[in-house]
């Protein structure tokens, strides 16, 4: 299942880039999500709790920042989760791509979600799962935006990855990157 979404952030590219890589700031924007453990700068453990009507699902799993591609201003995160009561497994491949746009930075989010297990083996419920997944990603975008617009800024200390990777790409993002501001 492919879910596409885009977020318009009132930020310059490099600011947006820093935020995106700050998992502790970004993760809670996904409804029902809680970051439980930071293993290293690329690997995080978390829990996602959500309800499909009377069915309460509690996923626990791991997310890994697989690729950080400064030239393309793209990040790929893979997440793998198991539902607490063994009712399902979720494997997601989430790609973020930043691009400049008139009000600031546009973040295109493409989520490839592969679900398995008893929760999806119910044809009547199929449309609900798709709608819920779409709803969650939409909510994520909306909450991220409101969180930023409310002036909250990520705590760089909270996560080392932001600083490490961010340094490396600072020049390309703010400079005349291929899709830099001059050809907006």
């Amino acid at each position, binding site marked *: 299942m492919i879910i596409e979404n885009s977020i318009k952030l009132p930020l310059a590219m490099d600011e947006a880039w820093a935020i995106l890589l700050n998992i502790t700031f970004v993760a809670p924007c996904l409804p029902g999500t809680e970051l439980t453990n930071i293993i290293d700068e690329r690997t995080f453990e978390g829990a996602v709790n959500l309800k499909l009507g009377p069915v309460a699902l509690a996923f626990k799993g791991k997310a890994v920042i697989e690729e950080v591609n400064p030239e393309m201003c793209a990040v790929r995160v893979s997440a793998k989760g*198991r539902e*607490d*009561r*063994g*009712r*399902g*497994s979720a*494997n997601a491949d989430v790609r973020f791509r930043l691009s400049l746009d008139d009000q600031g930075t546009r973040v295109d989010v493409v989520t490839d979600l*592969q679900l*398995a*297990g*008893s929760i*999806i*083996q*119910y*044809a*009547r419920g*199929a449309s609900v799962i798709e709608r819920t997944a779409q709803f969650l990603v939409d909510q994520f975008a909306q909450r991220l935006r409101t969180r930023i617009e409310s002036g909250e800024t990520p705590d760089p200390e909270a996560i080392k990855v932001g600083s490490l990777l961010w340094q490396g790409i600072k020049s390309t993002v703010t400079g005349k990157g291929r899709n830099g501001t001059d050809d907006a």
Partner: protein
Amino acid sequence: MNEKVFVGQSVKRLEDPDLLRGGGQFLDDLKLPGLLEAAFVRSPFAHARISSIDVEEATKVPGVVGVYSAHDLPDVMRGKRILLQVPNPAITNPITQEPLASEEVCFVGEAVCVIVADTRHAAEDAAERVIVDWDPMPATGHCDSALKPKAPVVHSGMTDNVAGRFSLGYGDIDQAFRNAHHVLRERYEPHRGTGHPMECRGVAAIYDAVADAFRIWSSTQTPHNTQRGVVDMFEMPEDHVRIITPDVGGGFGPKNQVYPEEMVIPALAQMLGRPVKWAEDRREHFLTTTQERDQVWDISVAIDDDGKILGLKGTLIHDAGAYLPWGTIMPYISATTVPGPYRLGAYKIDVTVAFTNMVPTTPLRGAGRPQAVYVMERICDLIARERAIDPAEVRRRNFIPADAMPFEMGLTYRDGAPVIYDSGDYPEAQAKALARAEYDSFPVRQAKALKQGRYIGIGIGNYVEGTGLGPFEGATIRILTNGRVTIYTGATPAGQAHKTTLTQICADQLGVGMTDVDVVVGDTGMMPRGAGTYASRITVNAGSSVRMASIEVREKLLKLAAAKFHVAEDDLECRDGAVRIKGEQGDTISFSDLAKMTSGMPGYVLPAGVKPDLEASAYFTPPQATYSNGSHVAEVEVDPETGLVTIIKYTVVHDCGNVINPMLVDGQIQGGVAHGIGNALLERMVYDVDANPLTTTFAEYLMPTAELIPGCDIVHMSSPTPLNPLGAKGAGEGGTIPAPAALVAAVENALKPFDVRITDCPILPQRIVELIAEAELRKTGGN
């Protein structure tokens, strides 16, 4: 003295009194002291590697005795797969399942771990807490895409998804197509359906450490197959593995497989030294019990102007599912069934059996024949439409005439013997069915209905079915010292009333009453050699064996009595459990005394040449299958606005040779047609593109219910077969086989005003509405 008292009569069933009181003894009813119950952890992925299994939390659940994965099982099972049931040179990749998947799972539901606890509830609690780290891999969800170049491989390590290939046919196919006045081509797609007996599967086992022997109960149709599988897996002598079949709540085919649970549950009983039972639940049945019907046919037919079929050729892709427990028998049956009752000038079919990441497919009531008959009958209807000939007439012009019997088709049947139709009058069967269904006056009915805005249609389904397959089903008849007669047989009933039928045959030969006979079925300990119940073979095989063995026992009784009374055997008769000198006041000696005489009791002398015990065994071995046939006519009404199909009338003409119990045969036909109606209009197992099953409850997989199934109007024909002493043929699947063909034809005929073409099955309401919309688009010159 073998005039028919019971054979041929609708004798009431011996099985009923117990079942009607709730006294049946089904697998899950078994009360074994100290019993533990098992539940399995099953793969949520259609294809994945097993990275790790963490059972720590699971072991802490109250009531749990143990949690086991593949490497915990006895060493003798390590790395072994279940014995392939039906080896065949056409199989390129004969892969079967492991008892528990060790490294890779290839369909959703494949078991990787088993939990044993004091209740099923506790075992399921623990199953939730087993954490398996899956590494999901791409999966293949349909047999058509499985053969495409870049299709994901079903089993890692294999280079493609081909499970087997073969071709078969007869006559000069190229010449047939050269001479053709017309060539028609169509693609047909029957979809997956399942058996769904009301009782799911189940296994229980006790291991006797002293004797190093298993007693295993299984809800199966073939205990001897299970025995062979267990013997091979545990490397034990056969007489140390006893499979006992309790009452079985329906089988319909899938219960004749050897399943992983039939390996794992005995292993657990051995490891724990306590009885263990696993009762499959309906969810597990949807995920793990074998299914059938998914095929893709691409067929061309060469005909002359009169619609005579000169030749028929094409390809068949058969969905094998993830493994091959039953080899490639089913596509073979499909391929050999296509010609059916018709004389095709030439026939050629190339078959590819494809693996998919779905539950394995094995024979399900009809075993590949419903699809073959669907294709052949659809081709007849295609000819009828293209050449504007009445569908019944197209069939009449192609029937094998009655005087051509026995008719050698030029193919080899699944048992290696040539396909030779032994007896049957196919044109007459159709003629009787059409008359009974008032086919000729139907156009008038149809026109009248159309005026009222109602769309009714009529469809024909003819079939020929190879039944009574060997190699044998033996029977041992023994008269015990209490005078009661006991039949021991490998037959394993699941509702067909074998005990009643076999008793009718035996009682007639020995002159006893129906309640004087006990029948022991489905127990490898009591009947060491057996094949089992499938392919409508029991009456032919076990029935003939019972008749032969009963005659042998009768002759022994007469010989003993003759020696005792110093009379000729011809002056004696068996009646009411005794041997009497014919005529009034003749001396009699009871079976019981004769049994004592030969049981080794002191005080008797055995006449010369008479072996001890009043017992005889017989193994009737049929030279080839015997061919039942029939003709179904369905009349339906279709609501073109919603797509709902209602059956107005269903007519069946059925020929299965001599009938032992007409009531039971009618029961098989009516029940078979209901199953066929399910396959035609209701039942579809749906998977998504990643091979995840989506219809896993009875809310979405629609089983036929009482208000949808009409009472069939059944007309009997009887073409006895010379191939067995009873002159009988099989009847268990005939009801199901042509039903989809007849019903789909009737739906298409009802929608004639819309010129709709139906090429898949089942045909569901949504699809009917789509087809009508497409047809109207075609008519108004749309794209």
